């Protein structure tokens, strides 16, 4: 009985701590870190605050990408190992890029654009990971 109580108590503490961590998400420093993480030769374009409250499953932004331009998106989050997945969709909602390849998550996405158009940059979260991060978009010709 005691061990059952202890089990539920630890689950409750874990849940509360994750929710508190999310509630305290301050993505500014993660945004700054992603901006400074842009590799040399790339010009900064935009930064994104990724603040997924406990019930927010995805966060999405759109941007017009231009053919002939190389883009890079750098990503930081509050997890020890990255838990944020970024996926790029074209205007017809076809998937064109992601930082999750197999079971690996990359902290940057390099995308030399071959088709001008509106793209959707979608952030989702691996289960059990904090939904708090920042990203920066850069470009070079």
């Amino acid at each position, binding site marked *: 009985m005691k061990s059952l109580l202890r089990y539920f108590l630890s689950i409750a503490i874990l849940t509360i701590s994750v929710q508190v961590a999310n509630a305290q998400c301050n993505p500014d420093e993660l945004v700054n870190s992603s*901006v400074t993480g842009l590799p*040399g030769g790339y*010009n*900064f*374009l*935009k*930064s994104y605050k990724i603040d997924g409250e406990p019930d927010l499953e995805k966060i999405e*932004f*759109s*941007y*017009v*990408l*231009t*053919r*002939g*331009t190389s883009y*890079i998106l750098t990503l930081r989050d509050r997890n020890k190992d990255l838990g944020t997945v970024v996926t*790029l969709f*074209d*205007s*017809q909602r*076809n*998937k*064109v*890029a*992601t*930082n*999750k*390849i197999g079971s*690996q998550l*990359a*902290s*940057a*996405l*390099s*995308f*030399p*654009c*071959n*088709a*001008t*158009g*509106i793209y959707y940059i979608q952030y989702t979260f691996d289960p059990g990971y904090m939904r708090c991060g920042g990203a920066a978009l850069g*470009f*070079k*010709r």
Partner: protein
Amino acid sequence: MKNIFYSLALLSCVACSSGHKPDELAFEQSLDSANSSGPIVDPELIGGILGQIPSPLEISALLKASGTRYDRRFLNAPRNHEKYNTSYKQALNLGVYGTDLGYTNIYEQNLDGIKYLSSIKLLAEDLNIGQFFDLETIGRLAVNSNNLDSLLLLTTQNFNSINNYLQTQNRANLSVLLLIGGWIEAMDITCQVASLDESNKQLHETIGSQKIILEQIMLLLSFYEHDASISALMADFRELESAYESIDITYTYQASTMEIVDGIAVIKDNSTTTINITERDIAAIRNHTNIIRNKIIS
């Protein structure tokens, strides 16, 4: 010597303006002709559309990469800022000067850049958003070409911050004008360069691809059509839109290939776009762009 002169000029400008604080009342009062009295538009919707418009910096980088020489005659003269005495004109020309500053930055013409920064600071102060420009820091970066990356970063961040700020102040109409001014200036520069180098197919394609952006701009303008100034601007943009009507952009999707290299997801984009644009289209677009741009900067 010139560097010292501009630094001193810059510092004196900073000294004059250092006591200025943002003032909500003054900010509201400054929104004379650009004031919004019509229906309230969802700020998230406006912010989303504004956020997807590419930075004019991308076009400046394209021009430089294509081997085009720096030419300040393409730009709006910095001293023209004195002519802009309505918030409508100030916001549009803040965008124009933002593009001009990016152009000088990309070409590492930092002394010209400082002149634009001074004009930008003055226009921003007129609109009560001068707090976003720390000229002392920017000026320090501008006099040394080694700091180009930091300068570009700082000025881009400043313009992004202004857009966010205006949206939170429910004055996204000024943000829209700022964006439109920046876009039309980048378009005008591109069209001028294209007219000097008619064999540059990449520039023609860039001009054609702006049809996608123009559609978004028309959408933004439509939200503020009740405003007399914006309504007149929209009429001019409709002429430009008609020049784009015959341009055909075909998109073909093909799945990308992806791999992780040194911790970076490297994507090979296999999709393509084909843009059909003729010399006649380019000439019509150049003409309408130039008419709008000249009205804005006059």
